[in-house]
C-alpha cells in the first residue's frame, strides 16, 4: 500500500506529552493522525504537575498551547475515551479496531460552561485528584482539563443505574447532553503505529514500612503534586489532611526500586523539585530527603540540586527502615550506610515511588506483538542502540512506555519516532 506524503496515516496510542508532540509533527508533515486516548481528557501525567524541573515552569501553561494547537489541527483526530482492541496487518497497512466509549456530551454543542456539573446530585472520589477531593458523575477531572467538555461516568450516574434523573440535561442550555449516544467501534487503516502510553507510579500498597494509607500524613508524590496544584483540591494551599500546614517534611526516594529492579531516572529530580516548591511556599518548613544515590544526570540538574540544598534542605543518605505515628507526628527510623541507626520526627512524609509501565501495557503489547523486557516496559529492537524501534516494522515506542525518563528525553523520543515514521516506505 502506498503510504506516503498526504496519504500517510498514523495511529498514535496515548495522548500524553509524547503522543501530543508526535501527533503535531506528523500532522504538520501532512499525515493524517488518529490519536487514541483512554481518558476523557488528554495531556497525560504532565498536566498533574504544578511546576516542572529544572526551571519551575508551570506545566499546564507549558503544554496547553500544544494541546490547543492539537485540538485545532484538522489532520488530527483525537479519540478520547478510546482504546485499541485489535491490530492486524503489517507496515504500511495495519487495520486497527478502536472502541470509542460514549461521552454522552456532544463535543460540538458543549461550550464548557460546567452548568451540568453543578446540577449533578452524585458525588464520588475524583481519581484524577488521587481521591483528595470529590467529583460529580458528570465531570471534568480538573479545572483547565482539555477538551473542555465533561463526560458522564456511567458507573456512578443515577440515570445509567435505573434512576430517573436528568438533572444535567435540564441544566444544559446548549442541548449538549445526549443520553442516547452509543459506544462506537471504529476500524482504522494506518501505515504506522506509535505507542506512547506512558507510566504509572509503583503501587505503594505493596510497601508496609512507610505507613502509606495507614497514617494520614504519609503522602505519595502525586498526591503532593495535586496539593501543590493551583487547580487541585486545595487550590495550591499546602495543607495536610488535618488542615494544618506541615512544619517538617521527610521525602523518601527510591520507593519500590528494589522490587522493580531499576532506577526510575526522574525521582531524584522530582523529589528535589517538590522540596523546592514546598520551600518557596512555606519558607520555614524543614525538609529532609532520604536517598541512596543521587541520580541527577545531564545539564542543569546538578545546579538545581545545589540550589535546593543551599536553601536549607537536608540530604541524608540512608535507608528508611520504618515509619511510625506518634500523636500528630511521624517518626522516621533510618539507617545510614555505615550501619548507624537514627530517628527523625516530622509532620509529613512524601513517598517518591518508581515509575512502571502504564496499566494495560501487557494487553497492548500482546495485541501489537511487541515483547516487554526489563520492568515490563516495551522492548526496543536493538537495546542500547535504537530505543524507539520495535521488532515489528512500522511500530514504534516513545516516552515512558519504553522506560522511565524525563520530559526532554520523552519529547526527543517522540520526535525520533516521527523521524522513523516519516522515513518509512520510501
Amino acid at each position, binding site marked *: 500500500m502506498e503510504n506516503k506524503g498526504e496519504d500517510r496515516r498514523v495511529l498514535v496510542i496515548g495522548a500524553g506529552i509524547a503522543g501530543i508532540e508526535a501527533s503535531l509533527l506528523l500532522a504538520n508533515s501532512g499525515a493524517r493522525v488518529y490519536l487514541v486516548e483512554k481518558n476523557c481528557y488528554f495531556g497525560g501525567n504532565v498536566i498533574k504537575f504544578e511546576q516542572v524541573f529544572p526551571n519551575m515552569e508551570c506545566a499546564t501553561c507549558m503544554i496547553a498551547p500544544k494541546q490547543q494547537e492539537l485540538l485545532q489541527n484538522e489532520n488530527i483526530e483525537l479519540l478520547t475515551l478510546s482504546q485499541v482492541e485489535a491490530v492486524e496487518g503489517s507496515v504500511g497497512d495495519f487495520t486497527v479496531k478502536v472502541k470509542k466509549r460514549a461521552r454522552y456530551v456532544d463535543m460540538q454543542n458543549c461550550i464548557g460552561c460546567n452548568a451540568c456539573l453543578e446540577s449533578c446530585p452524585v458525588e464520588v472520589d475524583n481519581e484524577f485528584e488521587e481521591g483528595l477531593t470529590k467529583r460529580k458523575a458528570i465531570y471534568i477531572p480538573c479545572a483547565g482539563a482539555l477538551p473542555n467538555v465533561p463526560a458522564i461516568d456511567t458507573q456512578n450516574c443515577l440515570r445509567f443505574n435505573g434512576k430517573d434523573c436528568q438533572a444535567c440535561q435540564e441544566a444544559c442550555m446548549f442541548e449538549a447532553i445526549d443520553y442516547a449516544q452509543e459506544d462506537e467501534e471504529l476500524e482504522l487503516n494506518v501505515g504506522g503505529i506509535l505507542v506512547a502510553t506512558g507510566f504509572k507510579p509503583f503501587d505503594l500498597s505493596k510497601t508496609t514500612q512507610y505507613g502509606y494509607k495507614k497514617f494520614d500524613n504519609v503522602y505519595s508524590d502525586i498526591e503532593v503534586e495535586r496539593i501543590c496544584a493551583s487547580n487541585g483540591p486545595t487550590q495550591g494551599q499546602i495543607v495536610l489532611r488535618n488542615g494544618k500546614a506541615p512544619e517538617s517534611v521527610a521525602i523518601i526516594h527510591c520507593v519500590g526500586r528494589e522490587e522493580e529492579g531499576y532506577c526510575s531516572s526522574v525521582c531524584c529530580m522530582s523529589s528535589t523539585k517538590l522540596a523546592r516548591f514546598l520551600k518557596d511556599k512555606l519558607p520555614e518548613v524543614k525538609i529532609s530527603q532520604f536517598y541512596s544515590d543521587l541520580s541527577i544526570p545531564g545539564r542543569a540538574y*546538578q545546579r538545581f540540586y545545589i540550589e535546593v540544598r543551599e536553601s536549607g534542605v537536608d540530604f541524608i543518605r540512608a535507608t528508611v527502615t520504618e515509619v511510625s505515628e506518634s500523636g500528630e507526628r511521624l517518626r522516621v527510623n533510618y539507617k545510614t550506610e555505615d550501619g548507624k541507626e537514627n530517628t527523625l520526627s516530622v509532620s509529613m512524609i512524601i513517598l517518591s515511588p518508581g515509575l512502571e509501565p502504564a496499566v494495560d501495557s501487557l494487553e497492548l503489547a500482546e495485541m501489537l506483538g511487541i515483547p516487554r523486557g526489563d520492568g515490563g516496559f516495551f522492548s526496543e529492537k536493538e537495546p542500547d542502540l535504537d530505543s524507539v524501534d520495535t521488532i515489528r516494522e512500522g511500530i514504534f515506542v516513545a516516552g515512558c512506555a519504553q522506560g522511565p525518563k524525563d520530559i526532554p528525553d520523552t519529547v526527543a523520543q517522540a520526535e525520533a519516532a516521527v523521524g522513523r515514521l516519516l522515513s518509512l516506505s*520510501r
Partner: protein
Amino acid sequence: MGKRIGVYVCECGTNIADNVNIDRVIEAVSPLRDVAIVEKYGLLCSEAGKEFLKQSIKEHDLTHLVLAACSPKQHEMTFMNVCQEASLNPYLLQMVNIREQCAWVTSDKEEAAEKAIRQIRAAISRVRWHVSLEKKEMDVCPDVLVIGGGIAGIKASQLLGSPDRRVYLVEKSSSLGGKVKGFDKLFTAMDSGSALIEKEVKSLLGAQNIEELTDSEVEQILGFFGNFEARVAKKGENGERNLSVGAVILATGFDLMDPTGLPQYGYGKLDDVYTSLEFEQMNMPSGPSGGKILLKNGKTPESVAIIHCVGREEKGYCSRVCCVYSLKFARMLKSQLPDAKISQLYSDLCIPGKSYQKFYEETKDLGINFVRAAKTTVTQNTKAVAVKYEAENGSKGELAVDMVILVPAMEPSGDTNRFAEMLGIPLDEEGFPVAEHRLLGPVASSVEGVFVVGCAQGPKNISETIVQSEAAAGKILSSLVPGRKLELEVRTSEISETFCTGCKMCISVCPYSAISFDEVRRIAVVNEALCHGCGVCAATCPSGAASVKNFGFPQIYQEVVELVR
C-alpha cells in the same frame, strides 16, 4: 475611506448573558466614534452564529470588527476564518474576552457591565489603528547539512536521505564513525563499537542521495531556516563548495575534560594514570598494544582503580554515562585479567533507566570493589600508585594500585562552540548550545532550522544520541517538505529606517537571530522569515524604530488609554 467598526457581543448561552448586563453595554458602546453597528447574539461560534456574523459584516460594509466573547485562545481562529469568508482582512479583528476575564470572575452584573464596556472601548480604540496584513509564503530548500560524521550524524543522514532530499554529511577527519568506532565494547551487550560503525556506514552507502564529505570543514553558514548557504572546504584541495540547504544538524560530539588541569589526579605526571578514552584505545585490537591491557612497563596490572566524576565539581554537572561505562571497563578488565583487583571510586551511582541496575549488579558480582569516595587524590608510592580518599563518614582510606583510570567530565567539542558562534546560538551556563525550549524542544536550537544533537547537546549515551538524531530528522521531515512552501509569521516586527539609529540593541536581544545590521545603510533590518513577532526588539529599541505589526505604539497606547481612563 471612513471607518465602519462592527461590535458584536456574544451571550455565550447564559454564560455571559447571566452575568453581564449586555443591554447596558450595547447602549454605552453604540454612540462611540466610527461604530457602525452593535449587536448581541446567543452563540456566535455556532454555525448559525458564524453565518449571521458573515452576513452582518457584508450588510453593514464593515471595515473593522470587535467581538466581545470568550478567550481568543478558544475562538480567534474561528472568527478570523469568518472574516476571511466575508472578505474582511482577518487582522482587522480584535477579540475582547468578556467571558473568562469578566463574566466568570465578576459577581455583580452591573460591575461586570462596566468592566466589559471599558474592555470593548479599548478594543474599538485599538482596532481602529489595525492595518490589513497578508499571509506570506517562502520557497524552501529541503536539503540538509549534517555536521559531524559520528554515530549521530550517520543516523540522521540515514533517515533524511531520499530521492527528493539531498544530505551533505561533513566530517573533518578522514573517515566516518566518530568516537564510537574507537570503542571495542559497548554497554550493555558488550558488542564491538567499530563493527557497529562499519554496519551503519555500509547502510549509509546504500542509502539515497547522501553525499559524504570527509576531510572537510564547514567554514561559514549564512541564511535562515529553509534557505541556508554553507561554505565547505576540503583539506588539501583548492576551492570551496557552496551548498544550499534548508536545515542544519550539528552533531559534533564531545571532548573529555583535560585532567591535567586537576593536579590531584596525577595525570600527565604519573605513568599509569589514564583517561577513559585512553583506556578505550588500549582495548582496541588495532591499537598500539593489540588490545592488551598493559602498564607502561609492559606488565599487566594486578590492581586497577577507576575514579569517577573527575572534573564534575568544576563543570557543575553530572556527565550521565560515566557510571555505566565504568561498569563496562570493570567487565573488560575482568574478562582479560580475571585475577585483577578492581575498585570503583564513586560518589553517587547514576545508573538511570530500566536496564542498568541489572548490569551493575552483575558487574558487582564479578567481585568488583565499590568504594564511595570523596576528595580522591592520586600520588606515586615507592612501588605502586597510591589512591587516597575520604569516606562519607569522614574516615580516610587508601588503595595501592598498579593502574588508575580517570573518568573525566564530558564537554561539548571545541567545534561545537565554534559552530554555535557561527550560527548565532548562545551557550548556556554549562557551555552547551541553548535549546529552543529546555523541555519541549530538546534538539531544536534557538535558531530556527538548526538542530543540535548527541553529545554536542549534552552528555549522553549511544541510544540517547541516536534518539536525538532521529528527533532532528523527525522535525525536519515534518517541517521541510519537498515542494511545499513555508508559511511565515504575519505579525512580524518592522524597523523604521527613518528612526533607527543603528545602535544594534535589538540585534543583541532578538531570541531568533532575526535582525541583522545593514552596513551600508547603518540600520537594523528584520528578516521576516525568522521573526516570530515576540516584540522584544520593540520593547528594547531606545528610539522607537522597532515595532510589531498591529502591536505598535498607536494600537497599544490607544488601548491602554481607554482601559485606564
